[in-house]
């Protein structure tokens, strides 16, 4: 069965259906989008059940000639990491549609357009993780900008146009650097064994270390902007603050993961030697991201910007885990990518509901919500606990794996990164206190609590967060063989327990 084609095709069908619906019938567009995304999720779940856990090669491989004269193929396939990220994306999609039922109203374009963009984006989200042809990956990587750009610029709030442009420029700069590296790889493949964009073949290329370092940087900077890693991060708070909550969830939850996914899939596989050369530098950037993002989050007055900065801190952990080069760090990082999507989704969606009720995203405009809207307040608090990685919730497992995996090889980095857990308590509990506790302040007395639709949207997110906190094994069992394989391919073995450390 051609799982991946089916998966990528389904959202497009949904988009086509939405596009022929009458413009006035907004409800039909929403329903069609919801049905489509749920169908995609079901197919993904079925595909996951067919995944062979112990097989570390690519699975569900499909390959069609696209531009044969250039050696370009429409080639897709999954390893465990890509599978997990696609699963994550397709779970988020229906939740975002349901949670943001009304967020397309008041946009520059029709409600219909909003859902077409979302569905097209879903196809690309699947494609970008599934692509095994570098050209195809690049095209989707760049093309993804288009729907996101329109979603921010057309359906966002505040300085949405400026934020959309900033997002675009950053991404394009990164994209161009990567493009240069891709071209160079393509050229070299022609010299060595015939032109190709197949990543398996490209990983066999012989390169001088200078070449490898330069090409590595082209990829890494593109991914560091996407992820985002300090100091390439400044587009994110603006974009997240201006985008609608649902768009922010997809942006931070899925699109940014393309950056960290790319580091594993492309940087480590194509340039193993350069990866090792740059590891010390990248680890420092990761630790800086963790602390810098956390401090900036503490200092924010706007709830959406605050959440964006917490994500910068979290992406620092993911990057740290990837480049610690241990199985715990690596599996932790991949699990972190999955878990972060849900804790950030919870934060953004609940914050979105708060903002739409109050008409403001300034934290100090809220106050005493716990006594006015208890369910809303609890949802926000719960999302916050997930973000600060409370043991028993999913994010704790991944964060601890990253830390322990880093500690065995780089104890100093791990110790500094651990300060992040104190800062996390601050950046969550400060807004919790300001918005939820204290006396109910004027303007908040008559806010409405969550309605049934919103409860249904947040419930699965909460359930995933709790379930994976206590029982992460189902995901870890999928992830572990792949990460173990990557670490071994790079020539690393986990440090044996030794008394030398620290």
């Amino acid at each position, binding site marked *: 069965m051609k799982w991946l084609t089916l998966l990528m095709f389904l959202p497009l069908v949904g988009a086509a259906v939405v596009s022929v619906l009458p413009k006035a019938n907004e409800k039909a567009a929403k329903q069609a989008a919801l049905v489509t995304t749920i169908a995609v999720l079901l197919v993904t779940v079925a595909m996951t059940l067919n995944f062979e856990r112990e097989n570390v090669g690519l699975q569900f491989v499909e390959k069609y000639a696209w531009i044969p004269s250039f050696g370009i193929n429409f080639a897709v396939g999954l390893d465990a990491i890509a599978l997990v990220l696609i699963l994550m994306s397709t779970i988020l999609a229906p939740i975002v549609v349901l949670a943001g039922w009304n967020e397309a109203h008041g946009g520059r374009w029709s409600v219909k357009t909003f859902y077409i963009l979302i569905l097209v984006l879903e196809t690309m989200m699947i494609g970008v993780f599934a692509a095994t042809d570098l050209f195809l990956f690049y095209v989707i990587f760049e093309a993804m900008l288009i729907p996101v750009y329109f979603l921010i610029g057309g359906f966002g709030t505040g300085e949405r146009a400026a934020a959309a*442009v900033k997002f675009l420029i950053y991404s394009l700069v990164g994209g161009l650097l990567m493009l240069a590296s891709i071209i160079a790889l393509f050229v070299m493949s022609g010299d060595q064994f015939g032109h190709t964009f197949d990543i398996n073949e490209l990983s066999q290329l012989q390169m001088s270390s200078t070449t490898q370092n330069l090409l590595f940087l082209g990829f890494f900077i593109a991914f560091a902007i996407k992820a985002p890693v300090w100091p390439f991060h400044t587009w994110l708070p603006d974009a997240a603050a201006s985008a609608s909550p649902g768009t922010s969830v997809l942006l931070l939850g899925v699109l940014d993961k393309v950056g960290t996914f790319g580091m594993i899939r492309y940087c480590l596989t194509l340039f193993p030697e350069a990866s090792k050369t740059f590891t010390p530098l990248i680890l420092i950037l990761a630790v800086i991201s963790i602390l810098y993002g956390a401090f900036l989050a503490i200092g924010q007055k706007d709830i959406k910007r605050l959440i964006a900065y917490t994500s910068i801190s979290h992406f620092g952990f993911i990057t740290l885990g990837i480049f610690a080069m241990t199985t715990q760090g690596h599996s932790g990082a991949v699990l972190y990518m999955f878990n972060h999507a849900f804790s950030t989704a919870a934060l953004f969606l609940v914050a979105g509901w708060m903002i739409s009720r109050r008409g403001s995203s300034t934290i100090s405009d809220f106050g005493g919500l716990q006594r006015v809207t208890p369910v809303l307040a609890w949802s926000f608090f719960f999302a916050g606990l997930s973000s600060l990685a409370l043991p028993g919730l999913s994010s704790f497992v991944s964060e601890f794996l990253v830390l322990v995996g880093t500690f065995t090889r780089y104890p100093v980095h791990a110790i500094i990164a651990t300060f992040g857990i104190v800062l996390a*308590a601050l950046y969550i509990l*400060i807004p919790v206190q300001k918005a*939820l506790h204290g006396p109910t302040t004027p303007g908040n007395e008559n806010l409405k609590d969550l309605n049934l639709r919103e409860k249904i949207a947040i419930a699965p997110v909460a359930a995933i967060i709790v379930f994976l906190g206590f029982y992460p094994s189902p995901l870890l069992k999928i992830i572990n063989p792949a990460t173990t394989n990557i670490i071994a391919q790079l020539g690393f073995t986990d440090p044996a327990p*030794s*008394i030398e450390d*620290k």
Partner: protein
Amino acid sequence: MSISTSLVYLIGLPFAGAAILLLGGRRTDKWGHLLATALSASSFAVGVYHLFQMVNRPVEMRPTSQKLFEWISVGSFNVDAGLLLDQLSICFVLLITGVGTLIHIYSIAYMSEDRDRRRFFAYLNLFIAAMLLLVLGDSYLSLYVGWEGVGLASYLLIGFWNQKPAYATASKKAFVMNRVGDMGLSLAIMIAFATMGTVSFAGVAEQVDNTSEAALTAMGIMLLVAAAGKSAQFPLQAWLGDAMAGPTPVSALIHAATMVTAGVYLITRSNFVFDAAPTAQLLVVIVGAITLIFGALIGTAKDDIKKALAASTMSQIGYMILATGLGPIGYAFAIMHLITHGFFKAGMFLGAGSVMHGMNDEVNMRKYGALRHFMPITFITFGIGYLAILGVPPFAGFYSKDMIIESAFNSGGMQAIFLGSLTLIGAAITAFYMTRVMILTFAGTKRWDEGVEPHESPWLMWFPMAVLAVGSVTSGYLLYHDKALYKWLSPLFEDHGEHEELLKPIVVSALALTMVAIGVSIAVYKYMRENIETVAPENVSWLTKFVRKDLMQDQFNEKFFMRPGQLLTKALVTTEDVVVDGSVRGVARMAIGSGSGLRGLQNGFVRSYAALILVGALTLIAAIWVVVS
């Protein structure tokens, strides 16, 4: 080691209660408190059942374990969700569920007027479950889940009335300072894995002999940091006084009898680490010694009855921590004092709650006085707690505190005399401030605000107080008699037998009682008079002022951590806006070619964007074409 399948119910019952009450919402208002109390009591029953099972097994078969499922497994990092009930954890299980159930009962009446009583009981059940997980987890990582779980419950309960901003701040302060401790626990676990390849208690105990002292010292210090955070020990003690913002039953259960003693549990549980790391062990002693004096001093100047008791708790836990730092000679006595303290301090806190209940929630002892005539039961039960904490024979504290003083004197070397003297001085100060509390509250003349009509509390409240009072009388002797607790726990510790005896027990007791008498006399002399001011006098020595400000603990933290932290945050936010983001904007402007480039781009944004994409695509295609042809 034997296998059980019923350990999970200990935790599962109260956890189910919390889940039902929280998810059920207002629908469960009518019966929520009853369900929560029943579940806590059932958990106690399961604990008692296990105690009897355990007593009837041969010593080496007494510890019981239950593996639930594989929790986290990556490479060589394998942690099961597993429970372990041994001689040490059963003590805690019975204390937590026993005192916990009494406090549930008390709260039914104490919180009856509160619109959110159900939520209160949900949090109480959540606390019981998390605390049981803390003492039943069979690895440091499982313990960690309970460790932060009780931190969460504590946060929720301190801030139960968080509509008052000061209370919300108190809860946040507690959580954040606890997180500093948690960081220590995190690092201790990482050190254990990196050096020993395991994070289970059994695994670490096994590997200790193959591990360098440096690594064990590092781990021990990190465990001490964790213990200091949770148990309000120096230098992480500043949150406990503010934590009195929580409803009084919470102060009794969490911030006196159980949660704050988790640090003592952690160090005792890690005895194999500390016994092999003398430097870390010495630090434990130092922290305990500082805190026992620190807390006692704060207690002397508090007019708020709950804060006086909180300072006392800090000091008493200082005794326990000090005892654990003495090594095998002290573990059993630390636990013994922990249990007796659980009885008498919880009892006194409930007594304080009962007084507040009768005095319109007044907490200022300067506005009490003469209450023994109006609340006789509260007076008697509180008085028993008072005699117990002083260490008057035959009350519980006499046995447990004397054993710690004795161990300090017998711990060997020069430090023994120093430590022993400190514990004696602590005893004197304790006697002083507790007598002050007794006199201000129950003796003297009425200094009540107008309209206050004190009355004895209902039986639902005094019944738990009475039970705890019985414990405050008997528990010391029962645990001490025939070295019962010592023998019960000794299979867990490597006590190498005989210790030199610097002072005979009878001498220690005599010294301790003398010190207590001195403390009591000073307090009687100072406070047994007619004209106690209802407002604390201002014309006092600098020393009194210093002590009233909690020895400047908040000012210190503010000056050296909070302010610099806030400055750093502010500086980073400014840097981000001006420098990092500014330079990006600058580059963008240059790239586009004019100062108004960004604005131009925004206006005609569709075209510009298309052009940019096009440039990218064209470059790619052109390049490929060049290469291929």
